[in-house]
C-alpha cells in the first residue's frame, strides 16, 4: 500500500503549471482580487497576514479590516502612490495545478511592463470595474494580450457588490466586451461576475448573492480550463543552439531548449542556416541519456557527423525545417522614451541569434482603441506598429503566429544597451529571396589601382557653423594639388537633390545619413577619396557609416567648436532663427548633438586656423 504522504507528494510532483496574467486599470481592484485569491488558496501565512493587518484600519466593531491589496504591492513607491508600478509574479498551488500569477500594472505608461508579463502567459484575466464598464485600458489590455498570442480569456466583472449584484449591468458589459473581443480575434472568453472585496465567485461554491449566474467560480474555471500544454509537441522539431559543450575530445554536444516538437535518437536533422544534414546520436540530460525529448525540455544533443554548428544555429527536423531570410514584415511594440528611428541600426535578438537590424519604413501604427491604422514615421513609447525590417545576416525564423520562440524578438539599443522594443515576425519579404548581388567584372581594387590611390572617407562632424565645410573645401583643394581623385559631399548640397524629401526630425536625420553613407560607399567602390561634411549629430549613424566601409577606410573628424563660438559666427543666420523659434529641431538648440566617442581626429577650431586644420587632415590620410 502506498503511504498517504507519498501519494500526496507524488500528486504535488506531477502537477501541471498554468501561467496567467491579470490585467486591470487603476482602481479596478486588481491587487485586492489577487490578494484575496492568494489568501483563499492558503498561500498567505499567519505572520504575513499579521504584518499586513497591523497597518489596516479597525472597523466599527473594533476588528481590523484586512486590506488584501497590501499583500501584493511590494515596492515603497507603490505603497506611497497606491498604484502598481511593475510586473510582479505570485505563486499558488492547488491539488491540480501550480499557478504563476502575473500581476501587471494598469497604467498606460507601463504598457511595456504589461507586454512583458503577457509574453509567456497562457491565459488572461481581464478585470473590469462593474461601475465603469469597458474602458479604453480594457480594450488596450485585451488587444495586447491577443497580440502576443494568448488564446484563453476570462472577463472578471468586479465590484458586483457595489452595483447590487445587478444581472442586467453584467450582461451589458459582457456584450460590449464581446463585440470588441470578436474584432481582435479573441474566441474563448468566459465572463464571471465577482467581488474581490467580498470574495463572491472567486473560490469554491457559487456566490449566493448572484443566483442568476450559473457558471463556475474564477478558481473552478482556472482549474478546469484546458490549456493544451502538449500542443507544441505536435509541431515539427526545432531547437536553438545556446551553447556548444566540448567536455572532451570525444564529446561535442549542442545545448538548448526544445521549442517545438519531439526529438528521438536516430532522427534526421538539419542545421540552419547552413542546411547541413546529420542524425541525432545522443540526447543527454544530466547523467542520463534519453530516448526522446519534447518541447519545453532543456537537453544536450550530439550528432553523428562533425557538422559546423554554433550558438544561434537552429537544429530542426530534416524534412520540415524553418525558413531563413533577411527581410521581414514585423509588428513592433516600442518600449523606450527615445523613439524608433527607421534606418538606425539596432541589435535584434531572436532565440540565440543576435543580428544587426534596421526598420526600413513603417507601414502604419495601430490605434489600439479603435483598431484604426494611422500613418507613422516613427514609433513613440508604447506605440504598436507594422514595419519592414532588414537584418545584416540571415535569420532562421518562423512566423510568430506559428511559433512564439522563433518568431518573437527583442530590440536592443546599441548605445545604451537598453531593451527598447519587442516584435513579432509576420513573414519574410519576397524581395529578400529575389534580389541578388550582381557580380561585376571589375573589382573595387582594380578601380582604386587605376587612380593610383587608396579610397577613403573623411567624415567631418560638428555643430552647424563649426567650420566643417570650410576645412573640407581646403582639404579637397590640397588633395587636388597632390593629384588625388576626390569628391566632396556636403550636407546642404545633398538636401537640394538626393535628400530633398527629408526634414530635420531625428528620424529624417538618420535616413539622411544612411543615404549619404550608401553614396559614400559607392564612391569608395569607384576608388575615390570622399570628403563628407555633415552635422551628423548621432554616434549611432556615424558608426553605421563606419561599418559600411572597409576597416581603416573611415576617418571620423570632429570639428570641435563650442556652441557659443559657433553661435557668434552664425554665418548662415540659422542660430538667430532657431533662438527666435522660427527654426525647429536645430542641433545644439532644441535637438541634441552627440560628440564623437573616439574620433580619428579632433580639431579645436579655437586654437587652429582652417589652413592648419586642413594640414592635420592631410597628415591623417597620407602620413
Amino acid at each position, binding site marked *: 500500500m502506498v503511504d498517504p504522504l507519498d501519494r500526496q507528494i507524488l500528486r504535488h510532483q506531477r502537477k501541471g503549471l498554468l501561467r496567467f496574467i491579470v490585467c486591470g486599470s487603476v482602481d479596478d481592484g486588481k491587487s485586492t482580487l489577487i490578494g484575496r485569491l492568494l489568501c483563499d488558496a492558503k498561500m498567505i501565512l499567519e505572520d504575513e497576514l499579521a504584518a499586513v493587518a497591523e497597518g489596516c484600519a479597525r472597523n466599527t466593531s473594533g476588528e481590523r479590516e484586512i486590506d488584501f491589496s497590501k499583500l501584493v504591492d511590494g*515596492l515603497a513607491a507603490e505603497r506611497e502612490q497606491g498604484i502598481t508600478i511593475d510586473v510582479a509574479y505570485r505563486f499558488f498551488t492547488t491539488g491540480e495545478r501550480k499557478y504563476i500569477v502575473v500581476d501587471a500594472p494598469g497604467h498606460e505608461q507601463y504598457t511595456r511592463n504589461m507586454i512583458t508579463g503577457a*509574453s509567456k502567459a497562457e491565459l488572461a484575466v481581464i478585470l473590469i470595474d462593474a461601475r465603469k464598464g469597458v474602458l479604453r485600458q480594457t480594450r488596450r489590455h485585451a488587444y495586447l494580450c491577443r497580440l502576443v498570442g494568448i488564446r484563453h480569456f476570462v472577463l472578471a466583472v468586479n465590484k458586483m457588490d457595489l452595483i447590487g449584484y445587478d444581472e442586467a449591468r453584467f450582461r451589458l458589459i459582457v456584450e460590449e466586451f464581446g463585440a470588441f473581443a470578436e474584432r481582435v480575434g479573441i474566441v474563448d472568453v468566459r465572463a464571471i461576475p465577482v467581488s474581490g472585496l467580498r470574495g463572491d465567485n472567486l473560490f469554491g461554491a457559487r456566490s449566493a448573492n448572484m443566483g442568476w449566474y450559473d457558471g463556475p467560480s474564477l478558481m473552478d474555471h482556472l482549474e478546469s480550463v484546458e490549456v493544451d500544454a502538449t500542443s507544441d509537441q505536435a509541431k515539427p522539431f526545432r531547437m536553438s543552439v545556446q551553447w556548444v559543450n566540448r567536455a572532451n575530445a570525444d564529446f561535442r554536444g549542442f545545448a*538548448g*531548449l526544445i521549442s517545438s516538437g519531439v526529438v528521438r535518437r536516430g532522427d534526421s536533422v538539419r542545421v540552419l542556416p547552413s542546411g547541413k544534414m546529420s542524425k541525432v546520436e545522443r540526447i543527454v540530460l544530466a547523467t542520463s541519456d534519453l530516448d526522446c525529448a519534447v518541447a519545453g525540455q532543456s537537453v544536450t544533443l550530439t550528432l553523428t557527423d562533425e557538422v559546423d554548428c554554433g550558438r544561434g544555429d537552429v537544429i530542426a527536423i530534416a524534412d520540415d525545417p524553418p525558413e531563413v531570410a533577411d527581410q521581414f514584415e514585423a509588428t513592433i511594440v516600442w518600449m523606450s522614451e527615445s523613439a524608433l528611428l527607421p534606418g538606425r541600426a539596432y541589435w535584434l535578438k531572436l532565440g540565440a541569434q543576435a543580428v544587426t537590424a534596421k526598420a526600413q519604413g513603417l507601414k502604419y501604427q495601430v490605434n489600439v482603441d479603435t483598431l484604426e491604422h494611422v500613418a507613422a514615421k516613427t514609433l513613440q513609447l508604447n506605440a504598436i506598429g507594422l514595419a519592414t525590417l532588414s537584418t545584416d545576416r540571415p535569420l532562421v525564423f518562423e512566423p510568430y503566429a506559428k511559433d512564439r*520562440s522563433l518568431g*518573437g524578438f527583442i530590440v*536592443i539599443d546599441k548605445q545604451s*544597451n537598453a531593451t527598447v522594443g519587442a516584435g513579432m515576425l509576420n513573414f519574410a519579404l519576397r524581395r529578400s529571396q529575389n534580389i541578388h548581388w550582381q557580380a561585376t567584372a571589375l573589382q573595387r581594387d582594380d578601380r582604386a589601382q587605376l587612380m593610383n590611390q587608396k579610397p577613403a572617407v573623411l567624415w567631418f562632424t560638428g555643430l552647424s557653423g563649426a567650420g566643417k565645410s570650410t576645412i573640407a573645401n581646403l582639404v579637397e583643394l590640397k588633395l587636388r594639388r597632390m593629384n588625388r581623385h576626390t569628391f566632396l559631399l556636403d550636407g546642404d548640397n545633398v538636401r537640394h537633390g538626393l535628400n530633398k524629401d527629408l526634414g530635420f526630425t531625428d528620424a529624417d536625420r538618420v535616413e539622411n545619413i544612411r543615404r549619404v553613407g550608401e553614396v559614400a560607399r559607392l564612391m569608395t567602390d569607384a576608388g575615390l577619396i570622399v570628403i563628407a561634411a555633415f552635422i551628423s549629430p548621432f554616434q549611432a549613424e556615424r558608426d553605421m557609416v563606419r561599418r559600411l566601409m572597409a576597416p581603416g577606410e573611415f576617418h571620423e573628424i570632429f570639428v570641435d567648436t563650442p556652441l557659443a563660438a559657433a553661435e557668434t559666427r552664425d554665418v548662415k543666420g540659422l542660430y538667430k532663427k532657431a533662438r527666435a523659434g522660427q527654426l525647429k529641431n536645430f542641433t545644439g538648440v532644441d535637438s541634441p548633438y552627440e560628440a564623437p566617442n573616439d574620433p580619428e581626429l579632433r580639431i579645436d577650431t579655437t586654437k587652429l586656423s582652417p589652413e592648419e586644420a586642413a594640414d592635420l587632415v592631410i597628415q591623417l590620410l597620407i602620413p
Partner: protein
Amino acid sequence: MPPMELTHLQRLEAESIYIMREVVSEADRPVILYSIGKDSAVMLHLACKAFYPSPPPMPLLHVDTTWKFRAMYEFRDRVARESGMELIVHHNPEAMAQGINPFDHGALHTDLWKTEGLKQALDKFGFDVAFGGARRDEEKSRAKERIFSFRSADHRWDPRNQRPELWDLYNVRKRKGESIRVFPLSNWTELDVWLYIHLENVPVVPLYFAERRPTVKRAGSILMVDDDRFRLQPDETPLQRSVRFRTLGCYPLTGAVESVATTPREVIQEMLSTKTSERCGRAIDRDHGASMERKKQEGYF
C-alpha cells in the same frame, strides 16, 4: 507516440537550465553566489545538469560573514571538493578590522559583511554576471524583480527602470563596470525546492533537518548556541530542543523551528501544514517595511 505532459518541476528545471546556459554564453566572467543554503544547493545541482558532462564553467563565490553555523562551513568545503569547482571565499577586510558582529552592530553587520562584501568581491575578481538563488516567493520586493536584474557600475538596482523581459529573451548586454544579477530559481517556491531536493536527492546542510541542539528562546525566536561566541544573557541557559532551520544565515540572527522532520520527505509533510512563512525567522527582514527593497537598491543580493 502519445504526448508527454511535463510536470511543473520539469518545466521549472528546464527554464532554470536555459537561463544558466544563456548567461554562460553571453557573460565575460560569470560566478555562482554560493550561500550554502538549500536554494544554493538546488542551483548548483541545476548547473551540474546544465553543463554535463562538462563541470559548470564558473567558480563558486561565498561572501562570508564569519558568523555562519559551523555545519555550514563543513558542508561548503565538502561540496567544493566534490564538485571540482573553484571556491572563492571573500571576507570584507574592513568589517574584519572593525570586528563587526551581529550582537553589537545590528543592521551594520549585514550592510558591511554582506552588501559591501559582495560588491568588493565582484569588483575584485571582475565578475560581470552573478547567479543568486533568490526566489520571488520569498519577499514582496523580490516578486517585482526581473530574472536578469541589471546593476549600475556602483551596483545599484533601480526598480522603476528595469529591462522589459519578454518570452525567453534575456538582454545580457552591458557596459564595462556594469553587472547583472541572475536568479534562475525566480519562479520556484519553497515547496518546489523541497520537492526537487526530495526527488533528485540533492544534498543539503544537515541543519535543515531536526536534531536535538543547544538553544535559547529570545524575543520569540529560538536561537542555536553554535559556538562560544554566543553571548548568553544572565537569565539564559541553553536547552536541548529538537529543532531544524527553514533558512540559514548568520547563526545569531537565524531562528529555528521546533520539529521532528529528519528527511526531505518529512520536511515536505511539515510544509504542507505550516502556518508561518519561511523567512519569519530571519531578523534582517524585519527591520522596517521596505528594508529589503532599500538593501537591494544599495547592492544587496
